[in-house]
């Protein structure tokens, strides 16, 4: 993620500020949609698509629900993975990557259900041990 990139000042910023809002423009590669995006492993294996984002009470995203496996939509499983385990665009064209998980680790994870039950979130062990950011820098 381009953490240091300054927002481009909006040409119509002055007009917007009169109404009490500030319009900031970001380069397209800095902000992007995550819903429906494909997720890959470090080796490039298909890890499914992000279908939902789970946030905690502070509003911070804590987990991404990915729809994994199946053929033509038959036999997919929804699995929640820790938000911190995802890397966004750090490795150029790869898009969203789960560097510390493989399809085989994901397959038998408990399924996510949006029915008021406790949510099982998959966290790869390297992330628990080091606690550091698994994503390579830009």
């Amino acid at each position: 993620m381009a953490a240091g990139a300054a927002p481009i000042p909006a040409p119509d910023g002055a007009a917007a500020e009169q109404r009490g809002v500030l319009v900031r423009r970001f380069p397209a590669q800095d902000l992007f949609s995550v819903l429906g995006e494909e997720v890959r492993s470090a080796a490039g294996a298909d890890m499914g698509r992000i279908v939902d984002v789970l946030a905690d009470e502070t509003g911070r995203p804590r987990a991404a629900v990915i729809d994994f496996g199946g053929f033509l939509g038959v036999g997919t499983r929804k699995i929640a993975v820790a938000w911190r385990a995802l890397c966004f665009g750090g490795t150029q064209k790869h898009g969203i990557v789960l560097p510390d998980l493989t399809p085989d680790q994901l397959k038998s994870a408990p399924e996510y259900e949006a029915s008021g039950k406790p949510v099982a979130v998959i966290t790869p062990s390297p992330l628990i041990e080091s606690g550091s950011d698994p994503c390579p820098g830009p």
Partner: protein
Amino acid sequence: MHALDWLNFFIANFQTGFGPFVSVYLTSVGWTQGEIGLALSVGTLAAVIGQLPAGALVDAVRRKRRAAAAALVAIIVSALLVAAWPILLPIFVAEALHAFASGVLNPAVAAISLLLVEHSRFGERLGRNARYAAIGNAIGAGLMGACGYYLSGRAVFILTALLGAAALAALAAIRHEELGPAARPAARRPDRRQCRPPPWRALRDPRLFILCACAALFQLANAAILPLAAGFVTKRAGGEAPLLIAAGIIGPQLVTALLAPRAGWAAERWGRRPILILGFGALPLRALLLAGFANPYLVMVFQLLDGIDAAAFGVLLPLIVADITRESGHYTLSLGVAGLFVGLGATLSTAIAGFIADRLGGAAAFLTLAGIGATATALVWIMMPETRPLPGRVVARAFKRPD
């Protein structure tokens, strides 16, 4: 190959795209799970509610080929809508349109088939229909799977529209003279229309309701098995799972392609009941085996049994309805009634199986489905009368037909 074979082939071919794949595609264009669920519910609801009016519509239309053509055009339009405009309203419209058009298309094709052959050879004809539909399903699943994997979700629906156009061409190739008045079973001929009994008489036939109850129970047991089994394969097989599931979808279709013509032939020779009992019986057996063994390779081998029940169900349901309505007419209206029950069974199936799998585990869900399937088989055995017309009567009626 006859044009009707191609028609069945292409229809099955393009119907593969609509189905669970719609949710994969809508996910990929950023739809939320709630919106997708709503869109699929619109489709399911339209499919269930639409069966009866769709059947009545085909019944009322004199030119069944035109009804089929209109339905095909509607399905092509809905595929293009899905591909071009994946936002809420167009998708809802497309789902409803597709569901209703399918409700028209299936009875229309059955009616066209009945116009093409004598009643005594209708079983064989339906066997061929089911064979080419199964081949179409198998090839469709392969094509759409490859299309979705290598190209995009949108490409799948463009391919669907193209295959719909191919189905239209096949329909056009069924020549009008072949559907003409010569040597046709009398029930649906225009000259008999005026003396046709009112529709409620056809709908009051108790055999129709026994058949509907059997068919609903069958689907209640059947519809959830594949998604449930495929979910377990994903859980246990990981990276190989998509290929295994593809095999589990395509394999049974090949079995159906092999068996369906035989089922049609046997139903003409030995009667409807034994074939129906045999086919229905394969369903609880499959569910029992799936409850007992969890190995993902074995699961896909057991799924081959689906080919047996699908062949029997696909051939015998339209055949028995044709037997029942032979005197009264109103064939496609009665097919619509059966379709309504089949749709209700299939819709409830996934809900019930999902609920049980959630609380008691997969084996319990498969055991429940096996129990329901066994009940369906027992119901056929005990309640369903033989409906095959006696050969003597066919000859007698043929000579009596006024010209």
